[in-house]
């Protein structure tokens, strides 16, 4: 997240606590919907701040969100989105790369730490047995990373686009199915393709690559 958006996000999270229980569900739906919109994170947080102020002022007058926005909430959000500048194709690419590098920086060490080879390696190290500290990277792991990335993006997209009708049963069922498929897919990939070793890397190199990915993400999020 861009530092400016992050600062606003922190402030908004604080203010958010003052929103009443009655207004909270609908307010959250609106913010989730805006999250999926093609507008910058800074604009999202600025709108959130404005909206929070409007809701808190309405609460102070003894009114609710329904007095503030008469009618269609989705249409209201769509109007806000239409009033703000769209992300440029360049910004979209930067954001997509940013998310990818951040996810890789997290997934790579996790999948490494969870692998059987790492457990064997640690066993050897603690028992004083010789070990070259080389970690085999398998096709299963590589595909699992790709699968998790793709599935996460699809799930986020699904949640944001259906923010206003998530209560309906078929949405819940579909979301559950999607999540279930993701876990089953990752499990199957890891089990069935774990014997195909693509290449081996020293454990410190893997950690170094993860750190490099994290740093790339840190640079990209400021752009």
């Amino acid at each position, binding site marked *: 997240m861009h530092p400016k958006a992050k600062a606003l996000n922190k402030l908004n999270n604080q203010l958010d606590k003052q929103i009443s229980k009655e207004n909270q569900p609908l307010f959250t739906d609106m913010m989730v919907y805006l999250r999926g919109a093609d507008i910058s994170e800074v604009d999202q947080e600025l709108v959130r701040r404005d909206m929070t102020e409007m809701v*808190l002022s309405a609460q102070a007058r003894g009114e609710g969100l329904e007095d503030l926005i008469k009618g269609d909430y989705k249409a209201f959000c769509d109007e*806000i989105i239409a009033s703000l500048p769209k992300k440029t194709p360049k910004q979209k690419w930067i954001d997509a790369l940013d998310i990818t590098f951040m996810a890789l920086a997290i997934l790579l060490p996790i999948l490494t730490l969870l692998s059987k080879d790492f457990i064997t390696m640690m066993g050897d190290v603690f028992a004083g047995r010789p070990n070259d500290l080389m970690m085999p990277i398998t096709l299963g792991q590589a595909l699992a990373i790709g699968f998790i990335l793709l599935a996460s993006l699809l799930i986020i997209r699904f949640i944001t686009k259906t923010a206003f009708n998530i209560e309906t049963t078929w949405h819940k069922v579909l979301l559950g199915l999607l999540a279930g498929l993701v876990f089953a897919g990752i499990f199957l990939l890891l089990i069935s393709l774990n014997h195909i070793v693509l290449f081996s890397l020293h454990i410190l190199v893997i950690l170094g690559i993860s750190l490099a990915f994290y740093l790339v993400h840190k640079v990209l999020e400021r752009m």
Partner: protein
Amino acid sequence: MIPSQMWKGILDGCVLKVISREETYGYEISEALKAFGFTEIAEGTIYPLLLRLERNGLIAATYRESPVGPRRKYFSITDAGLTELATFYNSWTQLASAIETLFEGGAQNASQSQSAQ
């Protein structure tokens, strides 16, 4: 009740006019419009419009302390906004006079055709 389709073209101009009188914020604008006899325009209807006017440089926003907690966004009109307001009022006057002529003329035509019978 004025249909929302009819509002679309003129609400921008009316909001600009309210802001041109003094620096103000969303809720106050909706209340001002109500006081002038406009059918109820919710604050939520005005908010996207304010974002658009601000983006187009017709109004400028400043955050000021509010008694509720978060700082409130106050708007003032810019020079470009004043020019736009003049253009809007000019167009409106033309439109209003055309409608007036059409409807008055229509009534006269109707009475003429009645007297001819």
